[in-house]
């Protein structure tokens, strides 16, 4: 399989300036990051505030270009301005605040905005709108005003808007940070569904540990470096190391870890309620 994302020593530096605009120093947001994401994977990126996650996301969308190193998205070099347009079509982005991403006053027009902008013929726009809205379960809301939707529904509309561009990869940058539990469940299950049924590569950035347990791979960032990489089970087996990076583990994993410290004979890296229940029932 091909790599949809290929970062080689990707580095992002920026100047810190004082009030007069004089350069005070250089900060490094991404420091020689190597990252390969195979097409069709669901990967998650964890990291504390300021660790470089969002900077990485912006590079994947060519909103930023490398200071050093190279980044290929869908085989295209992001530092070449001629590729900008194609890259944004290959890799769509969904941000934290649903209210900042919705442009039209009717759901279906909002979803059609992207394809219309790139000159897709009208008939095809409507086909894409229908497909995208159905894929996120929002088709029945097509003629509603986005203002009337819940946070989770708005984020699903934002995802449909990205899907209408027929991207090969979606980057979700803390898409659930502002949502209630129901909204969080909706958005994560839509992302999984798109990955599973449409083969879209998903890159999920989040602070909720529970949301990443079904990912193919998890990467942990710290000070512009990828400091941990592995399957969710490998990552969440290292409770103390994660805490050093200001991260946490899912609540069930934390409970399993505490029980193990207390002498209960169970495995490391338990991720779900069912796994822990099975392990504990086995001990009775």
């Amino acid at each position, binding site marked *: 399989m091909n790599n949809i994302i290929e970062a080689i020593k990707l580095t992002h530096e920026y100047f810190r300036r004082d009030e007069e605009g004089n350069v005070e120093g250089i900060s490094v947001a991404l420091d020689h990051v190597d990252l390969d994401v195979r097409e069709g994977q669901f990967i998650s990126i964890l990291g504390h505030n300021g*660790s470089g996650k969002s900077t990485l996301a912006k590079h994947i969308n060519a909103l930023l270009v490398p200071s050093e190193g190279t980044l290929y998205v869908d085989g295209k070099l992001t530092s070449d301005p001629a590729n900008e347009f194609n890259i944004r079509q290959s890799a769509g982005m969904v941000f934290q605040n649903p209210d900042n991403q919705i442009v039209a006053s009717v759901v279906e027009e909002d979803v059609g905005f992207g394809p219309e902008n790139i000159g897709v013929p009208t008939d095809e726009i409507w086909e894409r709108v229908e497909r995208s809205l159905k894929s996120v379960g929002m088709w029945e809301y097509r003629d509603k005003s986005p203002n009337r939707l819940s946070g989770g529904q708005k984020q699903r509309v934002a995802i449909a808007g990205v899907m209408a561009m027929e991207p090969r990869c979606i980057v979700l940058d803390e898409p659930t940070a502002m949502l209630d539990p129901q909204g969080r469940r909706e958005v994560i299950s839509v992302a999984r569904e798109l990955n599973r049924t449409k083969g879209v590569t998903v890159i999920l950035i989040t602070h909720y540990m529970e949301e990443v347990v079904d990912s193919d791979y998890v990467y942990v960032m710290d000070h512009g470096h990828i400091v941990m990489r592995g399957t969710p089970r490998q990552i969440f087996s290292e409770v103390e190391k994660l805490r050093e990076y*200001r991260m946490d583990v899912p609540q069930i994993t934390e409970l399993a870890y505490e029980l193990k410290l*207390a002498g209960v004979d169970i495995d490391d890296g338990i991720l779900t309620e069912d796994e822990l229940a099975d392990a*504990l029932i086995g001990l009775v």
Partner: protein
Amino acid sequence: MSLILEDVSYKYNPNTTYEVTALDHISLQINDGEFIGLIGHTGSGKSTLIQHLNGLLQATEGRILYNGEDIYAQGYDRQSLRTQVGMVFQYPEHQLFEVNVFEDVKFGPKNQGLDDKEATLRAYEALRAVGFPDEFYDQSPFELSGGQKRRAAIAGVLAMKPAVLILDEPTAGLDPKGRDEILDLILATHERTGNTVILVSHSMEDVAKYASRLIVIDGGRIRFDDTPARVFAHYRELEEMGLSAPRVTYLLHSLSERGMDVDVNATTVSDACDTIKKALSIRS
């Protein structure tokens, strides 16, 4: 000394076709020194409710009494009410505005009519309480990291020494460590000063851990008002309202159904750990 709501209703756009009932006959008593968690899905009415508590919104029907006085009575000093019932809004860092952190925190006490010396002392005290590093006191609030901005903004409200502190999702967008730090400092301030805290949150795990009383709002009405353990026992009804229970609660119910003798009312990791150890006959 308390905050009492008597049959409070609030309608947006009353007597128009856009009329929406956001609060529907709410009666509630909040006692001094309580730590209350307030949960409800997006649009359930919880933000509308808290904006009534310091008089930012005026009820369409009903009365609100603060320390026995009707806050809607003629001549009632609502300006002073707002300093006694302090509110930390969502993303409070958007409200930072002064030239440096210290001046920003001083603004509230100065506005309360305190002289410069007293306001300065209050600012020191509040910044120390939130664990804000003193080398950044002179820095522009806009140059801080996300977590530091949040601390500075909370310090600005604490500096007014409100008897009631209302926080609307104070940890949204923070990394797990930052989330724990902010909630721990709110709890420490609560324990030290005996203030009343109302924490609005979308994290069931957080309200279970910190609050001693949990209020659930749905459709502008209070659906549950009890200890977290008793409220989370209704987890199926909570799910219907777009909420959930902490993950450990689901685990304990599943263990209990499978014949293990655990207390299903535990809602935190440490309580769940204790009851499982007991069921497995392991001594702490």
